[in-house]
């Protein structure tokens, strides 16, 4: 009894586990139950039950309700899909003036809107693309093809790579200094020499449209949320879901609305990149000290002046960190959006992966990673740059960078012109090195892969087989063996113990949505893969993080490594694992582990380093050993922050598991991938994405509630 009073939570947990296992053992697997593989759902089986709701017929295999809940939400994806089609093709037909045919035409409103957006996006992308690469489409937009045929001179020439490179170097020098400038130069030369110029500039043009637009929308929405509680409350759940939804899943509904191509890719990227921008804007504005705001008000600012002259400049750093986030999201989307036809490096990467040409994939991946790192460093440098006073400088000093760039343009243009005489018979290397004329190490890498396969085939295969048969298969079977009722009890019970009624209700809502969707089994498989990844990642991350946090040098080193790894677009992680393990679950899991270890490590290091030095000293004066200090002082204080790392790890792991569908897994991701090629897949993709987001949100809710309580308890919040 005494124990019960001392540790009430412990007994609650024990009780919950007992109930869970009792339910697991009490409810047998129905004899007819089997995991439904891909094609089975299209076969109409006389054993299936059906019901009709809102005029949609849903077919499913009925089991005991305790074992699997019936898919009462099965009509939802179909309904979403039909609604999308209705909106797009039938709702609110209106008369619109058609420029080409010079007459009024009847079109549904939404279709007209999406087409208008599409047209303007396409124009923007083409404009930037042609500034970088040359072409005539922009000119056509203002004239016509006939006119172009008559005036062959009228096309944008495209900037020679020397000028773009010089521009990048000068900009980097201005933002951060010599180091970054040299790095920028190296990246530009690498891209050019290896013949990746064209796809790189295609990717860049797509980012140069998506990033500024995301910035503008994110900033505006962030400011609106800051000003109005109501807007914030409306945005908040949306932001939460968007942050945890796999980017993959957004592709499908967007494809239905906007079709495929670069413009659709830009829109998708904006959808994904705007939420972090909103959050960081909000965070930055909230962090402005109330006294600064009062000082602004007492200076007689009206609302507009207060926002533009006081709040936004003061929150400048956080807002620019938001820009950095936007750019990073753009890069990861640059690859994912290739699924719906974004041209550039991502497209090449995907193509190479599809052909199992690891060498080519590696080159494209390396290129995109290098540009990502460069832009990451540039935007961070911009965020951290303090304004300088330049009122007392001479004209030359003030405009020296602009002047240098003007010089570079001139010299670059002269070189490019000279090049057209120099390389008369071949390509003008001073203007642009074509894709297949650069140096390529692809063959070398492919040989390397072959060598690895030849040499380590047995070892890798043994490991692979062992992992799959001894660890993964049993684990997966265990997850699938859980009766739905038991799982729901476990989740809701955990919610109640950690956060009381409120958390219990939230988690119940999330888990029921998944249980009532037609994809409970798939969700279990997703969860099992994520669980495996998270356990491995956390073990590695906590160990490495703890070791590295012990001294300043290793701390700095590991954080830098985390920074760089985090910059890689997620798809890039698939390249080396496919190189080693081919197309198996092992590959996916290893990619998951590598990717998800980053936040686990980072948060561990940050948590441990944030323990106040006074506590260190207090410990030392009490005569603790290093280990005692770690266990008794550092871990308890740092633990809440480390748990936030675990939270991030779960989100990262889920993302990677879903992307792993590209290699081939049997989880929700596989269905999302399938929905991509399904004409009526819009609703399905969206609901599948929401399911994944909800898995993440269940853990997110539990962990966050616990962390908040713990922090309050420790007096850290």
């Amino acid at each position: 009894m005494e124990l019960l009073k001392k540790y009430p939570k412990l007994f609650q947990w024990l009780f919950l586990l007992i109930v869970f296992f009792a339910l697991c053992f009490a409810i047998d697997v129905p004899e007819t139950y089997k995991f439904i593989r891909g094609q089975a759902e299209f076969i109409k089986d006389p054993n299936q039950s059906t019901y009709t709701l809102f005029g949609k017929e849903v077919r499913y295999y009925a089991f005991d309700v305790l074992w699997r809940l019936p898919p009462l939400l099965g009509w939802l994806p179909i309904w979403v899909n039909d609604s999308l089609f209705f909106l797009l093709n039938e709702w609110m037909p209106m008369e619109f003036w058609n420029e080409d045919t010079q007459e009024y035409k009847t079109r549904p409103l939404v279709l007209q809107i999406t087409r208008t957006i599409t047209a303007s996006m396409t124009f923007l992308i083409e404009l930037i693309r042609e500034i970088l690469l040359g072409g005539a489409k922009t000119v056509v937009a203002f004239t016509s093809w006939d006119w172009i045929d008559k005036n062959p001179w009228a096309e944008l020439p495209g900037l020679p790579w020397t000028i773009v490179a010089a521009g990048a170097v000068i900009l980097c020098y201005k933002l951060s200094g010599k180091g970054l400038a040299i790095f920028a130069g190296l990246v530009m030369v690498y891209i050019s020499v290896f013949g990746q110029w064209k796809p790189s500039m295609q990717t860049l043009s797509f980012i140069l449209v998506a990033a500024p637009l995301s910035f503008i929308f994110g900033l505006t929405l962030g400011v609106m949320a800051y000003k109005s509680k109501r807007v914030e409350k409306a945005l908040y759940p949306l932001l939460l879901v968007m942050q945890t939804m796999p980017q993959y899943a957004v592709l499908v509904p967007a494809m239905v609305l906007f079709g495929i191509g670069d413009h659709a890719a830009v829109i998708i990227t904006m959808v994904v990149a705007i939420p972090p921008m909103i959050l960081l804007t909000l965070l930055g504005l909230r962090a402005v000290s109330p006294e600064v705001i009062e000082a602004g008000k007492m200076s007689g600012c009206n609302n507009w002046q207060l926002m533009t002259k006081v709040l936004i400049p003061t929150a400048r750093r956080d807002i620019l960190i938001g820009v950095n986030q936007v750019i990073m999201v753009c890069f990861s989307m640059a690859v994912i959006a290739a699924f719906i036809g974004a041209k550039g490096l991502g497209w090449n990467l995907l193509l190479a992966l599809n052909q199992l040409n690891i060498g080519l994939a590696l080159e494209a991946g390396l290129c995109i990673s290098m540009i990502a790192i460069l832009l990451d460093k540039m935007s961070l440098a911009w965020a951290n740059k303090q304004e300088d006073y330049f009122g007392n400088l001479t004209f030359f000093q003030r405009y020296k960078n602009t002047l240098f760039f003007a010089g570079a343009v001139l010299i670059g243009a002269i070189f490019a012109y000279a090049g057209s005489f120099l390389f008369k018979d071949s390509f003008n290397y001073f203007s642009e090195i074509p894709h297949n004329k650069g140096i390529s190490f692809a063959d070398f890498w492919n040989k390397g892969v072959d060598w690895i396969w030849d040499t380590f085939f047995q070892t890798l295969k043994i490991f692979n087989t062992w992992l799959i048969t001894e660890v993964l298969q049993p684990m997966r079977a265990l997850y699938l063996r859980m009766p739905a009722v038991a799982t729901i009890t476990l989740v809701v019970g955990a919610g109640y113990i950690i956060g009381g009624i409120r958390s219990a209700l939230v988690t119940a809502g999330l888990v029921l949505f998944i249980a009532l969707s037609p994809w409970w089994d798939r969700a279990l498989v997703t969860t099992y893969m994520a669980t495996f990844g998270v356990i491995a990642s956390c073990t590695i991350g906590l160990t490495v993080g703890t070791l590295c946090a012990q001294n300043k040098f290793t701390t700095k080193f590991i954080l830098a490594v985390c920074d760089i790894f985090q910059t890689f677009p997620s798809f890039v992680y698939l390249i080396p694992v496919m190189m080693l393990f081919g197309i198996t679950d092992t590959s996916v899991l290893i990619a998951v582990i590598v990717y998800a270890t980053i936040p686990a490590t980072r948060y561990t290091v940050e948590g441990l380093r944030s323990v106040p030095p006074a506590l260190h000293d207090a410990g030392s004066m009490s005569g603790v050993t290093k280990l005692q200090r770690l266990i008794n002082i550092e871990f308890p204080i740092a633990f809440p922050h480390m748990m936030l790392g675990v939270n991030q790890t779960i989100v990262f792991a889920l993302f990677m598991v879903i992307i792993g569908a590209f290699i081939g897994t049997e989880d929700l991701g596989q269905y999302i991938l399938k929905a991509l090629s399904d004409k009526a897949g819009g609703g399905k993709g969206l609901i599948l994405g929401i399911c994944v987001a909800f898995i993440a949100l269940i853990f997110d809710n539990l962990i966050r509630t616990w962390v908040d309580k713990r922090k309050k308890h420790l007096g850290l919040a």
Partner: protein
Amino acid sequence: MTDAVIKCESVYKIFGVNAKKMLQEANGNVDAKAFQKMGCIVGVNNASFEVSKGEMLVVMGLSGSGKSTLLRCISRLTDATDGKIYIEGQDLLSLKNKELIELRRNKMGMVFQSFALLPHKTVLENIAFPLQIKGMKTEDSINKALDMAKLVGLEGRENYFPRELSGGQQQRVGIARSLAVEPDIWFLDEPFSALDPLIRKEMQDEFLRLQEKLKKTIMFITHDFDEALKLADRIAIMKDGIIEQLDTPAKIVLNPATEYVKKFTEEVPREKVLKIEDVMEKPNKENLSDLKVSKDEIIENVAEKILTQEKSVAVTDASNKIVGTVHPSKIIHTVFGGRKNND
């Protein structure tokens, strides 16, 4: 109207959802503890006072006593829950947003505890900020800012950014900024609390010098009783949102109105606060010494001279007329005697 520049009539500020309704039900008798049980926090509780032109009112109180809230009600950075506030006869609470902005642009200046400078602007740009917000031309505003920078002793640092300045220098910028529009009313919210003691003393002296020159109507917030004594024409002591006593420093020290006020005054060295007129007796026909002292002298400054005398000393006013006498023993009693047992 009177010549009061700031006039408050039973001002209340209560934080909480049902504040207004609860205040009506309480009918003016607000009990902070009862309100707290209902989820409301009482910031200012029935404050009434006036500040006349050129006067410096120091509001003293410990943290959470509502002194900053009171100041923010009067500058209308927050809206008072109930009561009337008049600024030069204008009803502050009935002003429209535009009129309020006009008022702040022309009549009010405020200095903040944490300086509240704009990090992206230089010293000059910070000082010129309220002028530019008003719509003044950049060149004119910068010229005016240069004058202000000189006034507060920031010459040579005009083009520094706040991050490059020490705390004391940053507060000089804050002061210059608040004075740039030449306001009539000057609010200072614990302006020197974030500075270390030596700099604080220097800034207090500097502040007195400025006020000597500018003669603004001032509301000055502090939690430091010594600072209040040093600067104030009158002091308001606040506790739990209530003004416990509002009087001149001497009267507060001599006649603390409540136990709470008394606790502050006990440790105060009287000779530094009291003037001769506070301890003098009515002139009588007794034999006076040759020494004469002005009634406005602080005791500390003349104590040594008086103590060399054996007979009472004559006290004169500005026109050199004898208005009273002080016996050396009274000085000794004031300095050494009357700490804890003087009543």
